[in-house]
Structure formats: C-alpha cells, structure tokens
C-alpha cells in the first residue's frame, strides 16, 4: 500500500495500525506541526518541546490500535500530546510554589503593538513562569477543570485556582495597553 493512497484519515490510521512505515511517516508529516505547537505551549524551551513531541509520537504509534474512531482522531492525538507534556513536566518535578520566582518583566516590543496573532500569543504563554503556564494552558486552552488539573498535577484545586489567578494577573500586567 502506498502512502498516497491514504486519502482519508481512516485509511491512514488503519495503515499505521498495520505498521506501514510510509503511513507512519505520513501521519507524522500531517500532524507534527500542530502537535509541536502544543508541546511548545507547555514546555520550558524548544529542547523540552522536542522531547515531548518525540515521546508523544512514540506513544501514538504504540497505542494507535486503541483508537476506535469513536471521536476525532486529531482530538485523540492532541490529548496524547497534552498528557505527554504534563507527564514530562511532572517528571521534571515542577513545583507550584513559584511565588518568588519572577516572571520576565520585559516583553519584546512587537507584542505591545500591531495585531495579536498566534505567534505572539504563544510567546506570551511561554513567558509565564512554569507553574502558572501549566495551569493556564490546561484551564484556558485545553479546557480542563480545576478538579482535573489538581488530579493530574497532584496539587489542590485551590492551588490550581491561585496559579490561574496569578497567570491572568501577569498577562494583564504585560498587556495593559491591550485592554480598554
């Protein structure tokens, strides 16, 4: 079977499930940039994001037989990459008492003006201190509840709320020119 034959998601997933190496590469080519953006959003730097991306794809290939087409395939992939990123953050023993670790007080000037595009937004999220960033990402972008965040990160719900509050406050300080 040639990879060009995988005209739809289903046939691509099925071919991957059968171990077709061309299909695996095609799956990677199709989704790696979206998944890399997720990893970049969660991780501290590009090296860590690369690790998470790599780890995530290995998991995808190992578990692709478990995908039963009951929901969106891209959604399934995203969950794997979000979870992989969170796992890696936990492995790095991130602690959430970051009250005395300062956020970078300076923003590159291009954020202060112009159009608010995805690259700018990503840069802002990446600038948040570790603890704030993880909770902010999970709650605001990926739609986890505080209860779920607490469970996944092994912190209390109120810590999750505090981190989110601090993240929002920090963003508002940075973006003071952007609010009416």
């Amino acid at each position, binding site marked *: 079977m040639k990879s060009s034959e995988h005209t739809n998601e289903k046939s691509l997933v099925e071919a991957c499930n*059968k171990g077709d190496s061309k299909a695996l590469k095609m799956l990677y080519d199709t989704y790696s940039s979206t998944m890399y953006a997720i990893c970049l959003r969660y991780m501290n730097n590009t090296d860590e994001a690369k690790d998470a991306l790599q780890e995530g794809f290995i998991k995808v290939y190992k578990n692709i037989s478990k995908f039963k087409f009951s929901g969106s395939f891209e959604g399934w992939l995203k969950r794997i990459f979000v979870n992989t990123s969170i796992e890696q953050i936990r492995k790095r023993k991130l*602690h959430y008492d970051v009250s005395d670790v*300062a956020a970078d007080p300076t923003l590159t000037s291009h954020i202060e003006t112009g159009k608010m595009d995805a690259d700018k937004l990503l840069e802002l999220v990446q600038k948040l201190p570790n603890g704030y960033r993880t909770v902010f990402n999970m709650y605001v972008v990926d739609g986890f509840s505080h209860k779920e965040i607490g469970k996944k990160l092994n912190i209390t719900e109120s810590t999750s709320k505090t981190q989110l509050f601090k993240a929002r406050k920090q963003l508002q300080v940075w973006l003071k020119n952007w609010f009416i």
Partner: protein
Amino acid sequence: MEKFNNIEEFEQLLQDKLNTHSVSAPSDVWANVASSVGSKVSVFSQLSTYLSSFTNILKVALFVGGIATVVAVLVAENVEKPEVIQEQTEETVSNENNNTESILLENEEASNKNIASETSVQNIKTAKKETVSAQKNEAKPDLPNNLKEQKLPEIQPEAAKQTNEKGAKNIGTSLLISNRTPCLNEVITLSNSSQLLGSWTVNGKSIAENQAQIDYKCDKIGTFSISLKSKKVSEQSTITVNNFATKINTSKGETGVYNFSLVNKTILANWYKNNKLISTNTNTIKVILNNVGQYEIKALPINNSCALAAITEVNIEQKGKFEFYTAFTPGIDGINDNYKVTIENYKSFFIQIFSAKNKKVFETNDPNLGWNGREFNNGIECKTGEYIAKVAYQLNGEEAKTQNIKLTLLR
C-alpha cells in the same frame, strides 16, 4: 490596534488561535521517532505477516538453518583472530544504532565530549540489547501482505551478528570497566569478560593481586591506564576521572529582581533558596528578594554528574532612611534646640554646617549629636539667619550621596 474589554475576551482569542496553531517540528525528531518505533514496526510487523503463512515459516526455518551452518563454519575459522571479530561486531552495532546514539548523546549534551564519546559505546551496547528485546515483544500478528523476498536479507545480519558475539566471548578476554569516565571519588568496578584471576595495576602501580573483579575508588583527576595481567592475558585500557566546579553569576535587576545563572551554560540545575527548592532543570533563574536577610542560593547540577554544586550568597539589608527639616530654635523653648537629621540603616554619615559667610560652625559623624546653635570650636552663639548643612551619607544598599540643606536658625 484591536483592544480587549476584559481578560475573558483575550482568553477566547487565545484559545481560538492556539488551538489551531502549528509550528514546523524540528527536522531531527522524525529520525528519532522512526528509530524508536518506525523501524521496529516495519521490520518485525512485516516479518510476522510473512510468517503467518505456513509455507513461509518453512522457508525461513530452512534459511536460518542454512545461515547457522555458514556462521558455525565462520566462527570455527575465526578462532585464531579474536580481535578482528570483536571489532567487526562493535562496528555493526554502532552502525545499526546511529539514531539511538544520537538520542543518547543529546541526553548527555552537557557532559564534555570525551565523556560522551567514551560512554556512547557502552550505551550503544545497552541500547542494542533493549531494542532487541523490545522488538521481540512488539511483533504484531495482523499486518500487510506486501513483503516478498526483501525480508529475508534483513534477518541475515542480525542472526550472524548474534553468533559472532557469542563466538567472540569464547575466544578473547576484554577488560570490563563499569564507567570509563567516572567522577572524582566514584567507585568503579573492574573485571574481565572471562573472569580470569590476575594482577591489576593503575598507571603501573599494583592495586590488587589474583583477583577477577575489584572495586576501585577514583581518588585523583586525570587519565589513568588500567591493566590486568595473568598467565593467559595482558589487557590494558584507560579511564578518565573528571570533576569540575561551576560558578553562579549574580546580577541585580530592578525592584529586587536578582538573576542567577551558572557560568557554564550547558549545565542545568535544580535551584534552592535557603535549601528550599525554587526552580528545576534550568541554567538561569530570576528571584525577587525584597525581605531583609541573608539568602543562600544553591544550584545542584542535574545533567552532569561530574559538576559540583554551586552556592552564592545575597545579603539584603534593611532599607536606609534619611530625613531632615530646615529650621530650628536653639535655647528658646526646649523644643527643637538642636539641629539633627534623621538617618537610619546607613553605612556612613558626615555633616558639616556653614554660616552664610562660609565659616564652618559645626561638624560630626555621629547623627545623634545635634548642633546647638553655637560655633563648635569656641562656643559663640550663632546669629539668626540662614546656614548651609552639607551632609555626606550612604544608606544600606544604595550609592553614596551628598545633600545640601538650607536651614534657618531662629532665636
């Protein structure tokens, strides 16, 4: 420029944009993923499909049998040239694991090149074993029927190599060193593949006699030659003992923000403030230190076992205070009889007071002593009028300053 009414509006935009955002993945990730999963799946899954047909099983069995016979002959022929076989085996292993090697090296990015290159051989061997066992576990039963003859040649080097490894063990002895690049004071294990008893020397100095395996404490930095001698063998190898200190650079930013970073940029560390973990896995941290006190900032390197912990101290002193008033009334009512400035938490202080005619009437370095309105060297009462106080002082945590105060003496 668009504006947001509230944070929720901003977050909505952020969610919309970031959920669909994509960034080109670095080019080397696929190679690593493929080496971990892709190749494994492609070779073994296809093989298992091939084996799903009984005829094919027979073909493979006959083929492997043939190979085994050939290898047995080869081993017998090579008994007299053990070194060559061993070298070939190592080469095959490293060629097949180029990708694994690059992952391992990346993990060890911060260690120096000597360490990386020497350990990589050991790592490759370990990695190879893991891959082989993983491959066995991973073979899947339901796979495409697209492989034909191409599969069989791929099995050949694998089978031949394993036999070669076994063959080499029986015909040569090599030194086994648990870590060829140990840190200072690390205990390493020295042994040999044939478990032969012999005398061990380090740089020609005997450290053990008649032993097959010994523990050796690396108590000096440098490269050392390790050798094992017995009646049957004389083997030699080297180890490099490392250790290095890294320093913390401190820089102070605005409003109590301190930046701490390790001078050696490749070292990542866990950071502690007064022994409390404040940040992990980073070369640089920012910490806000506003409260008065002594702070110990410690970095424990985590990506280089030979790097020592680095410590620096920051002393935040009580903020100084300097205040003054501009008039006083000596000897009238018992109030404001002496002229004093208020200074607290200071490093230095000196005040001089001059008359309008620029005659010095008072000076002291003790802020508790006030001027009583008389010339300090003869006690003559000074007249009502304007005087100039020149104060030179330095408050804690600030630059030295001078302040000229125009003050009025009233009688």
